[in-house]
């Protein structure tokens, strides 16, 4: 009898040891990159994985933030160039590449213009035309070179702002961290960027709503996805009003003013997070026609959901079967 008791106790102890870290789901909510983030992880070791993903995002925030102390980007902006970490150099160079692919619609060198508008402050305002023109001369993706881990600016007074691609990139890295930890089902929301890892625990696709640019409380459609990023850019996300006009934060690099292409909301669905983030901004700036050309040039390897000012919605054929848009006029973009 004693032996059985001892054996059972040993078994119980071993089970406890094996059980450590075994959890069904974990959720962590925190602030980073100027917005709320939430990571929900399912499966064994969920809590640890969620914490690791959070740490990854926070360290990336430190690296890319325009204002953080010790940020690589801030250092480079203040000294007109400099050495950065390998990861930072890689992302900057990728961002420049993506920028070139979009014909300059996605431009990380707009910092002087963004600052002229005061979008990083609490009091944005329409800039003085002369100040804006001056700021415009200090931009241009062609004027930035990345060589190894050195970033050089060809003009004085330039600056990079990774805001339009950092969140996407961070979401992707967080997803990688989760996958490395053996997680096969998780949902990451970084502000308006959504990243899905695998499918839901029951195997069904994640249902991601696209916020309506017309009514913040409603959504335009729901797209069912798995293992990819869903990133939406829209002027309605950040804007200010002055003298009866509305000015939003997505600047058209050609004019220096908030983009006015007829697109009010651009969503990209793609496995490449940085691309999804960058292109959502680019499409917003480019307008529907140029966006469709971009889509075909890219061999249709990403999908888009574009909402136009008149309320109509354009959806690329790849994702069309997964979009639910009750009561909305949806046009399919075919190859």
């Amino acid at each position, binding site marked *: *009898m004693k032996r059985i008791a001892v054996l059972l*106790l040993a078994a*119980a102890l071993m089970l*406890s040891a094996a*059980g450590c870290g*075994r959890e*069904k789901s974990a959720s962590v909510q925190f602030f980073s990159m100027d917005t709320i983030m939430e990571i929900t992880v399912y499966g064994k070791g969920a*809590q640890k994985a969620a914490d690791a993903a959070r740490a990854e995002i926070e360290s990336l925030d430190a690296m890319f933030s325009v204002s953080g102390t010790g940020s690589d980007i801030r250092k480079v902006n203040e000294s007109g160039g400099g050495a950065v970490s390998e990861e930072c150099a890689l992302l900057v160079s990728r961002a420049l590449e993506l920028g070139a692919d979009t014909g300059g619609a996605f431009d990380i060198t707009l910092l002087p213009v963004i600052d002229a508008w005061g979008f990083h402050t609490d009091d944005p305002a329409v800039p003085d035309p002369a100040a804006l023109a001056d700021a415009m001369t200090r931009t241009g993706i062609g004027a930035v070179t990345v060589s190894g881990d050195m970033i050089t600016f060809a003009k004085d007074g330039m600056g990079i702002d990774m805001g339009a691609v950092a969140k996407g990139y961070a979401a992707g890295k967080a997803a990688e961290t989760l996958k490395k930890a053996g997680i096969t089902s998780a949902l990451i929301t970084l502000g308006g960027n959504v990243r899905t890892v695998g499918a839901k625990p029951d195997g069904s696709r994640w249902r991601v709503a696209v916020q309506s640019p017309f009514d913040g409380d409603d959504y335009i459609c729901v797209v069912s996805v798995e293992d990819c990023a869903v990133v939406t850019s829209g002027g309605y996300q950040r804007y200010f009003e002055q003298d009866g006009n509305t000015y939003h934060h997505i600047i058209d690099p050609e004019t220096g003013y908030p983009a006015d292409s007829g697109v009010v909301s651009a969503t990209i669905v793609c496995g490449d997070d940085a691309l999804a983030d960058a292109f959502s901004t680019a499409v917003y700036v480019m307008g529907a026609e140029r966006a469709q050309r971009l889509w075909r040039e890219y061999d249709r390897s990403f999908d888009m959901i574009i909402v136009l000012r008149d309320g109509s919605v354009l959806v690329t054929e790849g994702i069309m079967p997964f979009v639910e848009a009750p009561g909305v006029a949806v046009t399919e973009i075919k190859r």
Partner: protein
Amino acid sequence: MKIKRLVAAALLTAAALVVFVIEAQVPALTAVPGVKLGLANSVTVFALYALGPADALAILVVRIILGSVATGQLSAALFSLSGGLLSLAVSMPLRRVFPAERMWVVSVFGAVTHNFGQIIAAVAVTRTPGLMWYMLPLTASGILTGAFTGLCAQFLYSRLMRSDSFHRLFSMQKNRK
């Protein structure tokens, strides 16, 4: 004598723990929080009759602590303790009223009280009195699960009563009611 009871108690604790951990792997049956079979409670009520209230208490508390460590859900321990202690508090006097043949009845009262204790703790922690409404489905579920686990305990008990080694280990007098 004492060592035998300790071993018996340890044995039951281990059994309860294993059962608890295994049951914890099964996902929740319904959206109502706390609806589960609670098989580990059959060990508690068994211990109440086979060893006595003090040992049953010890087994319950140790199982809850180890169980929350084993499943990695330490916060759940608060609710388990609240439910378990209240349940035992109610079961102890009932044990004197109901003989071993009616062990399942005591288990039903215990299960319903257990759910009640958990809801009370939840209401206190979240300050949401609306949660009390869950007592309706939880009473129904408590009756069913309590009856089932109680019958398991009772069945085991009546079978074991026929064995000599059981009596020796659990230090029970033969023919004790």
